[in-house]
């Protein structure tokens, strides 16, 4: 057991730092009174984010007559609202590291993460959370499977084995992880959340998103769990397996709906995920 733990911690240590700007942009962008200056300041502090925004703003989609060369420049040209929406789209893309990851289809992983993020936010909104909290719900959904990235990047041989087991036995992914790696992506994701100093609610949601029953039923965990099942049922991308688990009693009671009822309550899911997806493409353009 000690060995498993050491391996996990070692893998987590290799992960790059979480861009703080992403979290701040998600927060600012959900605030109707967001100050342009605050948003501009957050973006400027992150050179990678800055570069992505400039690349997008200078793309043919905007058709500007002059090259925009700085965030100040972009801010004057586009104004708060357009900049905010651009930043929001790109922030989601910036949250997860890129590159080739063995045994994990990144495009499908991304799409699944975005769908869960969007659905988690919608579920939170249904339960009456504030705009500020809704951004945290989105972030929790977006990052819930981040542990898979750690496995795929730094324990890639074992993770490929997990993939084969899922395929051969039709076993849920987290069970296959447990049997081969001695830990699930939820657990290693939680370790990463600790390293990244993410808010404890968020770390909790990552840790417990496959076991909401043992989580004293926090609302965020329930939302992520339900959003995960919804996204799998609607096959938005891939989470590594397609087994849709029944909603536990705590989740059903919270919403007074079953999974199909919840799906019918979020008619804009498709459209919102599609929008986010376009941004993935742009964020990756070189």
């Amino acid at each position, binding site marked *: 057991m000690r060995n498993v733990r050491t391996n996990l911690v070692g893998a987590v240590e290799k992960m790059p730092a979480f861009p703080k700007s992403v979290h701040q942009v998600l927060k600012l962008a959900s605030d109707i009174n967001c*100050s*342009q*200056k605050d948003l*501009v300041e957050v973006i400027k502090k992150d050179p990678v984010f800055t570069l992505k925004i400039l690349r*997008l703003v200078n*793309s043919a*989609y*905007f*058709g*500007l*007559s002059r090259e925009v060369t*700085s965030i*100040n*420049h972009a*801010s*004057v*040209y586009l*104004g*708060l*609202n*357009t900049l905010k*929406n*651009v930043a929001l*789209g790109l922030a989601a893309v910036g949250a997860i590291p890129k590159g080739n990851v063995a045994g994990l289809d990144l495009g499908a992983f991304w799409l699944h993460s975005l769908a869960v993020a969007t659905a988690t936010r919608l579920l939170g909104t249904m339960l009456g959370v504030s705009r500020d909290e809704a951004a945290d719900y989105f972030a929790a959904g977006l990052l819930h499977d981040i542990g898979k990235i750690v496995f795929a990047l730094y324990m890639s041989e074992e993770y490929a084995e997990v993939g084969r087991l899922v395929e051969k036995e039709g076993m849920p992914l987290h069970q296959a992880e447990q049997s081969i790696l001695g830990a699930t992506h939820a657990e290693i994701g939680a370790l990463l959340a600790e390293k990244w100093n993410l808010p404890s609610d968020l770390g909790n949601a990552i840790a417990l998103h496959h076991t909401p029953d043992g989580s004293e039923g926090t609302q965020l965990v329930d939302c992520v769990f339900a959003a995960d099942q919804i996204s799998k049922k609607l096959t938005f991308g891939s989470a590594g397996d397609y087994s849709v688990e029944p909603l536990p009693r705590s989740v059903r009671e919270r919403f007074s709906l079953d999974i199909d009822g919840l799906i019918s309550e979020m008619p804009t899911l498709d459209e919102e995920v599609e*929008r986010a997806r*376009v941004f993935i493409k742009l964020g990756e353009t070189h």
Partner: protein
Amino acid sequence: MRFKFRGTRGSLAAPGASTVKYGGNTSCIEVRSDAGDLIVLDGGTGIRELGLELARAMPVACHLFISHTHWDHIQGLPFFIPMFVPGNKVTIYGPPDPLNMTGIEAVLAKQMEYPHFPVRVAELQADITYKTLSDGQRVDLGFATVSAVLMNHPAMDFGFKVECDGKTLFFSGDHEPFYNIYEPGDEDYDDYERVVTERNAMIMDFFRGVDVFIIDAQYTEDEYRIKRGWGHSCFEQALTLAQAAGVGKVYLTHHETTRTDDQLDAIHARLQKEWSGSGVDFVLAREGDVHTA
């Protein structure tokens, strides 16, 4: 060249007894060459009546320029009768939607989707073409040219300059002067100020000396203080801009939704007094009025 205000209201149509004089329809301007060729600026609710008039003498050929796709500038489009009748030719020009990565063709398609409208865009019978414009683009229509310049609004928003029969007309769409988000003394104040100055100068160069200047003047100065960043100018900003650009006749438009005729009359009287001797020749735009450039 002559033009007729078909809609002068901002944000939302405001019909009723208190808006009869200046009008309750949202943004739409009919522009005609001396020979009768037709350019329409914006497709707010004011375009409906224009469509009814055009339907009396079909086939219709018209060039429709959309400043931006906020509702008050497009809401009349699905009620523009010439689009339903075969043989008519309508060209729609406007800004892209860079966030959804679509062009101006999405403007009609989206508002005519099933939950919003009973007719689909595919069922429109006229010959409709879409041309998505970019900043600084100049379109040659043969009888006139129309150029687009990116203004300052919470969406991609173009001001249009129409050159026709030896005269020039500029319509701002919605616009708020560019301003510095930093305070003097902040590290980035100077850099930001440089870009703001450059942007204000760029649009100024675009409409300097035009014969007709139609500009967004939605707010009073008091209202503007609260609504800074909403993408509209106050009367004083609009007149200051007109003065600096040395334009001909100024038409202040995009009247605040809640503003009554009496209030607009009072504002007009006050401004006339305050700006007498300034050299700026202005009126408040009135729906239904026809002017010659």
